[in-house]
């Protein structure tokens, strides 16, 4: 066993020396390969952190969301449906919600306005970790809102607390900010203006008795699917969405986007593999001489194949580690600046520091198998071709 390792270490030692002798040639391969791995790993890490973040956030999502559909589009749902839902055994609570998008012509940004009835019994001094300054809304608040730091900046509020938005008839509705969302919620709340149900109804001029959707809380999570089925039976033409479905949809969307990234990456990889193949195939006179001399000295074909494999493995592993590390820094420190538009969308108000890369063996293996393995395979046949040079060819 020790003889085996001794032989391997000697060959590895020779391979490292050989790499250093051809520094310029190997350097270009290393840099290109690092770049390719960096791009793919960045995608992978960003998708991973987004998925984890979505999981965390969706814990707070309602168990079941009920929306009215008409002609394939979502329309307002009658508030009266709430009583019907509350009658279903196992339903703990039904809450109305009015929400929609508000386009601010002055700044070109789209805000998401969410109107909810604050829970009874909420107190003025109650602190909530999601709000970094001020407080949440109280049941009898009128004209009060909670916004994100981004929206404060976009509106140019500075230290002021009051701002106005237009109703559909172009009259002004005035609001006072009473709280600011914490930055850790940015992915969710970067473009959110939270107000009471009545204020949202007033802003969007929605008729009394109608809301955007109904949020259902279920006492026993095991009964979720059954209750969702019952709701679909009681209210014809509604769309019933469970939290699990939202979670899975998020996962699918993120996996599609990262798949798209992987496809783009594949073209880069193919180009790189051809480049590596080409570099490895062209045997120079010196290389033929070197192999010939090694053979004369007693090296076997197998040893030279192992030598070439060691060279490729050292380059690709170094490139893999460097590329992955750079991707980590790119995502963790620079918040994935280069790729964030692809994964987060194109809106004007975008969360700033949404990415915390997760260390997962699966990600490492995925990146490794999609980059290092094809490279090693591409250099396999050239390695053999170099190894079967005959000893007498240099004499």
């Amino acid at each position, binding site marked *: 066993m020790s003889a085996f390792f001794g032989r391997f270490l000697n060959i590895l030692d020779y391979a490292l020396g050989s790499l250093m002798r051809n520094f310029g040639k190997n350097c270009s391969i290393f840099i290109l390969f690092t770049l390719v791995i960096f791009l793919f790993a960045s995608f992978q890490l960003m998708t991973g952190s987004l998925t984890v973040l979505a999981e965390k956030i969706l814990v707070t999502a309602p168990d079941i969301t009920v929306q009215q559909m008409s002609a394939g589009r979502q329309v307002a749902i009658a508030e009266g449906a709430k009583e019907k839902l509350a009658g279903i055994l196992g339903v703990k609570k039904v809450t109305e919600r009015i929400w929609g998008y508000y386009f601010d012509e002055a700044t070109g940004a789209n805000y998401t306005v969410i109107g909810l009835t604050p829970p009874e019994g909420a107190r003025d001094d109650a602190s909530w970790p999601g709000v970094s300054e001020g407080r949440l809304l109280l049941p009898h608040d009128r004209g009060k809102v909670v916004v994100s730091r981004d929206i404060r900046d976009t509106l140019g509020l500075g230290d002021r607390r009051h701002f106005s938005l237009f109703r559909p008839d172009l009259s002004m509705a005035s609001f006072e900010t009473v709280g600011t969302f914490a930055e850790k919620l940015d992915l969710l709340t970067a473009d959110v203006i939270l107000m009471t149900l009545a204020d949202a109804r007033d802003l969007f001029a929605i008729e009394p008795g109608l809301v955007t959707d109904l949020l259902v809380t279920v006492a026993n999570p095991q009964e979720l699917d059954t209750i969702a089925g019952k709701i679909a039976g009681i209210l014809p033409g509604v769309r019933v969405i469970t939290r699990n479905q939202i979670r899975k949809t998020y996962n*699918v969307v993120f996996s599609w986007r990262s798949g798209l990234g*992987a496809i783009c990456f594949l073209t880069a990889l193919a180009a790189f593999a051809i480049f590596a193949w080409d570099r490895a195939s062209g045997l120079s006179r010196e290389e033929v001489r070197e192999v010939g001399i090694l053979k004369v000295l007693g090296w076997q074909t*197998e040893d030279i194949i192992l030598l070439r494999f060691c060279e490729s493995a050292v380059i690709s592993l170094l490139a893999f580690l460097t590329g992955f590390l750079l991707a980590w820094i790119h995502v963790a420190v620079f918040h994935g600046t280069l790729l964030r538009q692809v994964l987060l969308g194109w809106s004007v108000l975008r969360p700033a520091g949404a990415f915390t890369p997760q260390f*997962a*063996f699966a990600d490492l293996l995925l990146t490794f198998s999609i980059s290092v393995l094809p490279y090693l395979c591409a250099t396999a046949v050239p390695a053999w071709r170099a190894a*079967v040079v005959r000893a007498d060819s240099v004499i």
Partner: protein
Amino acid sequence: MLLNSWSIALLVCSAATILLGARAAVTALRVVRFWDAGADTARQIRLENESWLSAMLMEYGLALQIISLLLLVLAADSFSKILVGAMCATGAFLANDFGIPALAVKIFGLFLYGFWILMHRLDLRSEETPLTRMKFYYLLLLVPYLLADTLLLLAYLGRLQPDIITSCCGVIFGGVSGDGRNLVGALPALPLMALYYGYSGLLFWGGWGQLQGRSRTTYRYLSGNICLAMGWLLFFLFSLLIITAVISSYIYAMPSHRCPFDILLREYHGVGYPIYFLLFTSVFAGMSAGAVAPMGLLPDMARPVEAYRLRAIRLSLILLVLFLFVISWFPAVYLASGGEW
């Protein structure tokens, strides 16, 4: 669901394996047609050189196969987050008819590639390389296997339907059977474990007997070794059943969760890796020790085959004991700390 990083990685690995396999098959065709061990022609020298290439490509193929098996299991775990009713990798594999066959083909692929490499190594031990033609016929047989592997994988990935909110109606009740189906139902643990330990003991005894000395007649030598190889194959399948039906529940501490894949996850400290490593290596060593025996009858092969056989049997027995110890550990700790003992 081909547009997914996992699917793409698996397909890249498959494509690479097929390319390597195709190149090796070209050599195999030439060797089968023109190989002449005694000749000293330029063509023979070229063929000898090419056989090095095939050996290297098969070694690459084996490495790729090991990694893609691991990828497939981890991919199934990641797919389970987006499929209807799938709670873990088992659910993802059962999501369509091709999941389990694709997995099985990958698992047995490991053994088939491993045997080829072993045959090649043994062949090189002899001056006359008597196994050359045989090993290249074997290689040609592996090509359709490789294609089947890739086609099954494509069928599995292509037919996976992720569960997403459709715009017409959110609820997809049709498919919600979501109890995280298990591969096998609940089995009577105690008799099954008794049978399993008994069988392992028998296998150990059989291997030990082989170590003690060579049978006198060729017939007994061959039949003993082939029985041993079949015994190890059966042990492999039995062990997979035991890990799934009995041992995994103890690792998860959940009687209703019987999944052979989740034990690879970080939540369970990746205990699956040592378990499967020990299982695969012991079965490979045991099975190959039996399977190489007929090669020992060829001229000039008796010594290398016998040397390998004894080493492999010894190794398989050591690994078998370790494997049994590791998988017994979890129920033992559970029963002891639970006060049942």
